[in-house]
């Protein structure tokens, strides 16, 4: 055991301390990515960051509409610009300099006054307002929906000003477990999983393949240090790297983003250990099936990206077409991540979290056992 621990430490120094790239990807890159994700998405859920650029075209001066949008001008969410010619505003919309264009007809004021006066009678008159948007641009579609909602709210406000208006009281709450939806908390398990996968797909196979190419593994076989001990040392070394990486990540999450203490619970930690075990075995499986480092790099990179983006890490992939959804369901990361998020109080999408991850574990152990000689470069 002492020999294994000593060799693990040697491997750790070699793979992570002497080699900057090893330490960079495992220790620092997760922190950088977490910082970027929280900077971008941190305010989106609450609508803090979003700014909609709205162009208002007045064919003729409209006191009524100007009054309607006047209170929006003070809001940070809206950047309102006025235009006299519709073509000029539409050109800006097409060039992505505006998100939406509202066209206010030259007869708006008179039609609007008539519509309000007739509203209380049995007669009906409506005033059209054109909203131009670019459907292929997400921000433009969203801006259109927001402007539409605001106009409808204003309509209700006009009716409220007539008096005798019955308000609807909406009592809105979030489920007890997720009192405040926080993107920094939501993405935390995704970064943890990404770190585990980086170790499984890159650190473990590269470490073994490099030694195999240098024939070091063969030399180990004729030494008193056996192949099983070597593999165990590689895994232990990477567990140590994961421990350090997660210590940094947990500290950052808890200190700067107030990630709840539940991440220190045994359930959360056990899921991490299970994840690490599965991805260590997948890493060994790759190295047992593929000989050359360049091919390992190709397979690892492809699987890493596919499992990350099709694992519900950053966006919901469970409503995709079955042509690709099957991969989401056979991806062990989907289940481990879902369980990690469930432990943090978020709703789980899936019910059985153990079947697929264990299937991968058993399959990879089986393949590694059958191809063990190839792992060590002896055929």
């Amino acid at each position, binding site marked *: 055991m002492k020999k294994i621990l000593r060799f693990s430490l040697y491997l750790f120094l070699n793979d992570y301390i002497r080699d900057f790239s090893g330490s960079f990807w495992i220790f620092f890159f997760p922190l950088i990515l977490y910082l970027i994700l929280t900077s*971008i998405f941190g305010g989106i859920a609450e609508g803090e960051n979003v700014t909609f650029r709205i162009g208002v075209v007045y064919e003729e001066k409209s006191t009524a509409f100007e009054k309607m949008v006047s209170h929006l001008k003070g809001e940070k969410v809206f950047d309102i610009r006025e235009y006299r010619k519709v073509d000029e505003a539409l050109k800006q919309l097409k060039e992505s300099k505006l998100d939406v264009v509202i066209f206010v007809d030259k007869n708006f004021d008179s039609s609007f006054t008539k519509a309000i006066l007739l509203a209380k009678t049995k007669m009906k008159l409506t005033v059209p307002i054109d909203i131009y948007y670019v459907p292929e641009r997400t921000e433009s579609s969203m801006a259109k929906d927001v402007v539409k909602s605001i106009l409808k709210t204003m309509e*209700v406000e006009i009716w409220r000003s007539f008096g005798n208006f019955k308000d609807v009281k909406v009592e809105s709450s979030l489920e007890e477990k997720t009192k405040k939806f926080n993107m920094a908390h939501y993405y935390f398990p995704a970064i943890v999983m990404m770190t585990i996968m980086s170790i499984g797909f890159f650190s473990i196979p590269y470490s073994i393949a490099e030694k195999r190419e240098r024939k070091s593994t063969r030399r180990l076989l004729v030494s008193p240090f056996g192949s099983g001990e070597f593999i165990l040392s590689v895994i232990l070394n990477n567990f140590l790297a994961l421990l350090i990486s997660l210590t940094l990540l947990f500290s950052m999450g808890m200190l700067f983003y107030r990630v709840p203490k539940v991440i220190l619970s045994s359930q959360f930690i056990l899921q991490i250990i299970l994840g690490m075990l599965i991805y260590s075995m997948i890493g060994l499986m790759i190295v047992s099936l593929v000989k050359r480092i360049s091919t390992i790099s190709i397979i690892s*990179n492809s699987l890493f990206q596919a499992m990350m983006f099709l694992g519900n890490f950053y966006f919901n992939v469970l409503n995709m077409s079955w042509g690709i959804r099957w991969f989401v369901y056979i991806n062990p990361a989907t289940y481990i991540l879902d369980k990690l998020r469930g432990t943090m109080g978020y709703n789980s999408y899936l019910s059985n979290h153990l079947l697929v991850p264990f299937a991968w574990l058993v399959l990879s152990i089986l393949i590694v056992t059958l191809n063990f000689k190839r792992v060590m470069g002896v055929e």
Partner: protein
Amino acid sequence: MSDFVSLAKCMFKESIRNKGTMFFTLIFPMIFLIIFGSVFSGGSVGDVQIDVGVVCSENIRESLKTLKGPWNLIFYESESDMDENRKDLDALVWISGESVRILKKPRDMSNMGYLNSFEMSLKILLEKKLNGVKDIVVVRERKIHAGGMDIRPFDYLLAGVIAISILSSGMFGVITLFSHYRELGVLRRFKVSPVRKISFVLGLSFSKFILSLLAAFIMIGVSIFIFHGKYSMNLFLFIVTIISSTLGMMALGIILSLSFKSPTAANNVASIILTIMLFFSGVYFPITFLPPKLRILSFFMPARYVADAVRYTLGLQSMSALNFWLINTVFLITGSILLWVASEISLKPES
């Protein structure tokens, strides 16, 4: 001229024989394309479905059915019925006269946004119904397609993915090649050979242009055949954009290769640059959604301009001719200057 042709031929052959280079130039961007294509091809709302459980009176049910959005309203006879199915619902709603209770169960960022939007729409609808509010304003939605073609959000996104792949293959391709040449001692051999620096730079650039063009056309082909992408390509302008942006990113790749002795360090820095570009260039996430301070950062991202130029050349976005040529000229001039500097440094005789 002949040394340029020989070098270009030789470097191109070297690239296509290198499994890693070919994978990261041609296959890797394709993986991204297929993943993002499958995720986003349904449109911004497309396949999203928010399951909302509702307990309300019969007359309100009919009005609620007029609510437009991605919500799937499931009506229950009693609270206990809804409670039994709460695990599968994104929100639970109880409507009784003038009061509404909503329990939201956000599962991700998009769900949260949709649930907030649902709450707002529901309040407006109920207040209008309760007070007999007649429509005063009628909103008419007018779709404008920036490039003149009826396209989907996916087509727009794809152009950005192509831009990112051009940039990454330009930058990483050169870093890999330079590291490889340095390791094999090829650069040293060039120094003592009569090969002119200009031929070396042009040969390297030309072989990269061919690969970038190949990658871009394969991606467009895949998006047309698999995802039914619609493009109205201006071939000449498209090639100009690919040449100028590849040149610009190659120069950045060479600068990184020369700045860092270790190829892995250069690769790491390039990866950070690419990650930042992915998030702050407006390709995957609209720039207007970024925090105001970070929006400034997007102005310094080459990917932002290349994505705009690629969309323009594929007929997906409008852009003034002046703007288009300005972007390409800046890339061409900056790229050429940096490449010349890089060739001076890398092929400088050793003292």
